[in-house]
């Protein structure tokens, strides 16, 4: 039997597209925006069964010592990010990408109280940081990103450049934007064009 390999490599749709380097109006300054494609990770969506929110929250608390995020919020632990994704629905993300382990674990932990779906390959995440990160995001989303309105720990599902995105502010002026895999290249093109005036670096 031909084996691809014991640890098959995941191929990002931005491979050979997001090429490291400095672009746009850099003018001897530091780039206004830094873009990097997050390495393959594990993403699992959790949807609480009917009337099971409390139980789901309890599992989050017990297993991960975090509160199930409220609408528009994210919670972070050392290894995990949990984003609100809809009513009684969350994305759980870890950087480890060992195939299926997160899914299997959650499926067990939430068995009978939530539906668990593996989305690890369905989304591509780009990290956006730098002093113009906010200005860049504001070219796409109608969400108010002002310090008083959207800060570290906030997240939103919204639209940029006709593409639905999940946007999370992971640190001050540092965002993660996730899009469905098939849109990744188009989104990247838009993002980089919008970054030109700030000067940007792809890392």
């Amino acid at each position, binding site marked *: 039997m031909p084996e691809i390999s014991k640890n098959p490599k995941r191929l990002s749709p931005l491979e050979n597209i997001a090429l490291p380097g400095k672009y746009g109006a850099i003018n001897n300054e530091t780039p206004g925006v830094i873009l990097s494609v997050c390495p393959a990770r594990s993403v699992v969506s959790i949807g609480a069964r009917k009337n099971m929110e409390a139980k789901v929250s309890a599992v989050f608390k017990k297993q991960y010592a975090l509160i199930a995020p409220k609408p528009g919020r994210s919670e972070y632990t050392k290894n995990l990010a949990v984003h609100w994704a809809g009513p009684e629905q969350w994305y759980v993300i870890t950087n480890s990408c060992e195939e*299926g382990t997160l899914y299997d674990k959650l499926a067990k932990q939430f068995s009978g109280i939530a539906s668990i779906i593996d989305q690890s390959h369905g989304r591509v995440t780009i990290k956006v940081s730098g002093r113009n990160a906010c200005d860049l995001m504001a*070219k796409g989303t109608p969400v108010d990103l002002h310090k*008083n309105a959207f800060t570290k720990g906030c997240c939103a599902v919204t639209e940029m450049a006709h593409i639905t995105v999940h946007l999370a502010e992971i640190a001050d002026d540092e965002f993660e934007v996730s899009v469905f895999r098939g849109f990744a290249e188009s989104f990247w093109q838009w993002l980089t064009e919008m970054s030109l005036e700030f000067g940007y670096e792809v890392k």
Partner: protein
Amino acid sequence: MTGYRLASGGLINREKSVSFSFDNKIYSGFEGDTLASALLANGVSLMGRGFKYHRPRGPLTAGSAEPNALVGVGHGARREPNVRATTLEISTGLVTTSQNCWPSLRFDIGAMNQTVSPFLVAGFYYKTFMWPKSFWEKVYEPIIRAAAGLGTASHEADPDRYEKAYAHCEVLVIGAGPSGLMAALTAARAGARVIIVDEGARPGGSLLFEDDDINGVSAHDWTDGIIAELDKNDNVRIFTRTTVFGRFDGNMFGALERVQKHLTEPDQDRPVERTWRIFTKKAVLASGAEERPLVFGDNDRPGIMQASAVRHYVKRYGVSPGKCCVVFTNNSSGYRTAKCLVDYGVKVAAVIDSRSNPPEEDAGGVKVITGAVISKVKGSKTVSGILVTREGDLENIDCDFIAMSGGWNPNVHLACQLGTKPVWDETIAAFVAPETGSDFLSVGAVAGRFSLTECLKDGAEAGAKASKACGHKPKPIEHFETSSDNLFSIEPLWNIEQSTGKAFIDFQNDVTSKDVPLAAREGYRDVELTKRYTTLGMATDQGKLSNINGLAILAGATGRSIAQVGTTTFRPFYTPVSFGALAGANRGQHFRPVRKTPVHNWAQEQGAVFVENGLWLRAQWFPQQGDESWFTAMKREVKNTRENVGVCDVSTLGKIDLQGPDAAEFMNRLYCNGFKLLQVGKARYGLMLREDGIVFDDGTASRLAEDHYFITTTTANAGPVMTHMEFCHQALWPEFDVQFSSVSDQWAQLAVAGPNARKTLQKLIAEDLSNEAFPFMGAQTVTVAGSIKGRLFRISFSGELAYELAVPADYGDSVVRAIMAAGKEFGILPYGLEALSTMRIEKGHVAGGELNGTTTAYDLGLGKMMSTKKDYIGRALAAREAFHRDGRWNVVGLLPVDKTQKIHSGAHILNIETKPSMKNDQGYVTAVAFSPMVGQWIGLALINDGTNRRGDEVEVWDALRDSYVRAKICDPVFYDKEHVKLHA
């Protein structure tokens, strides 16, 4: 050639000269000049030609409402028509040309129209050009079209970039004149998030051309001080060269920023223009007022302009439009111009005040003639003098330019765009901004407050009120003292009947003081009808200059007051906005995003030709060396799949993961056929209807566990099906305990089809794929290539022994390559949409062509799927009479009688020897293909009573492509009728 540059003054950089061209002649101006100010400084006042009569025109204003001095800018793909010379900032290399004239601006043949101008009254074209009938399109209309219009636009793609962005604030201030600046400052000091926007290149509004002192400092210094303070405040954003063009629902404003419009060679890293969508809690409108022209004979001559525009040129640009001025006014503001000119050493021959007893005004020592009007203007391309009439006495006065003021029109547009009408204020003879609730405050001149002190106070109060409403604590409002606070007074003068020559109301659309009464006489008395009949106010200034004069004349002609006549409707755009800016980056290839499947790169390497499907790019065929066209490629791909094995990317199918205790019941409600009894590990073909009983979508759904289904939809309907399911769950049956998500992008899905499909896949998949272990319609989890967890479905669109293998998307590329490697010995080849489509037609499987949104399950031959045992979406209305009427169309096969003939989809069906007519129409061809297996063209068609007419011959009637083919109605399954291969 009368205008000239003053020795000093102006907010221009005299150190930096800028050269530019107008009509191929090179001129020079200074940094800070507009095209109009620079041309005037060079003695050029003729800048355009009128629309209808081609009369010579010069600038009337110094701002964005300019109706006359419109020019073409640039060339080639960057050519831009109808640019206002009065706002166009010059930069080195700027190329401009005049418009609407031939052969040249000075000698324009079109000016002959003036000789027939008595015919060309409002609406003349509605009464003529009707005979002979055929002449309209062949003769009259082309002439009218060539004569009409203003500038010439490019057809080439624009090389420049445009962007859009969102902005948010608590207080949006529109206009950075004294009122707006105070509003912004007060709100900012209170701690509010403020955005202040001004269309000018620099903030200051009217303070840029007025002399007043504010609290003891000059207006310029005062403005600079405030800007500096606002600039320092992190909560404030100042946008200049930015016009708020529209107000929309939810206190949302559209604004156009001209990022690089003032540069001839834009930097490609930045957009030339950017559209802002500004969301605010409170808005303060401080848009000021536009000075009104006076309506007298030949008031359109180059050299006649708004009195405030004259001040503008003198003070802002250090340019005098001429050597000797006459001021013509009916209100106090004309005097300001006289005084200003005197201060700058420009001669003023007289102030002509139409008021008999005007209040005392400071005319700077110039002779004032009261109770007088201009009754004649001398000169045609320039002004050489005037005739003044006072109580029947005539007086000649020499002058080479005229500053006129008919009063002020507040720029109420944004206050009125949501439908509230402006309010007539008799004391200033103007419509002022109405109150439209606490979210939107109008201040300063736009609200009818014309004294500077009032404007400052008004702005400050609004800033305080708005910031307070947002939860901030504004400081008490300071006291203002200004050097000029004489009251504004006006005595309206709408039409100067004593004067000779055409008196223009709307300069750009060439509407005269005669046209409006004519419209009224002919019954077009409603202000909206007058507008439409005469085109008054429909030009690029949208009536900013002309409307009130027009309304007043209409009021006079119809015996109504101006307030009774009312205004026409205010609508976006405040000033015109380019297509480019409104589209932003969504242009060309980026009009809409592209979706690429996980195996796109692989397909590309195979040389695939892609086609658009929804937003996806899908491989259409895979040309190989020697292929002449898609046709040969398709035939090879079909044959190879039917004889050996093929692989096809079906990742674009919509995929939905459905779980929960009520999943089965939910499925049963969604689909017209049953899903409750489907065994775990099995797939089933399902049909969804709309609530009106028409077929919505089809696809397979598999039961992965008791409470877990995996649904696939057609590519086109992936979104709509998901939305529909969400609606059903949330709005119809929230009691169901189900959870579902789209997993379309999570899985790469590959169809492997053909007699060798099993052999190929078995090489990669650990689990037993024998017919016994994994029969037709099986669905199970498998391990691919030793390590990848995938899902395998034994389903077939091609009619072959076939599987669809889903693997996590990032592995799609490796897996398709592995499949190709595994299948090599069995002759595997990729196949594209063309082959897929041919094979589905050969098997009579319905698809997009038949699921056209008007067909029922019966029409498609799937009536038996409709369960009678349960409720489901669409059940009730599918029972309607017409759906079951005898003779209704249904899907059948079509086979040309002459095997060499081709048929087309979209052709209609006629019974043999009947005449083509809608009555005789029997249906149409929904899909065709050349079938390599049958060896001829085959088709599917929707034909009236088709199923009962198998064997009949019909005519496939395609007049559009001149093709008339006899064909036989047949069973829609053309190949492997017993479906033996499927179950192999």
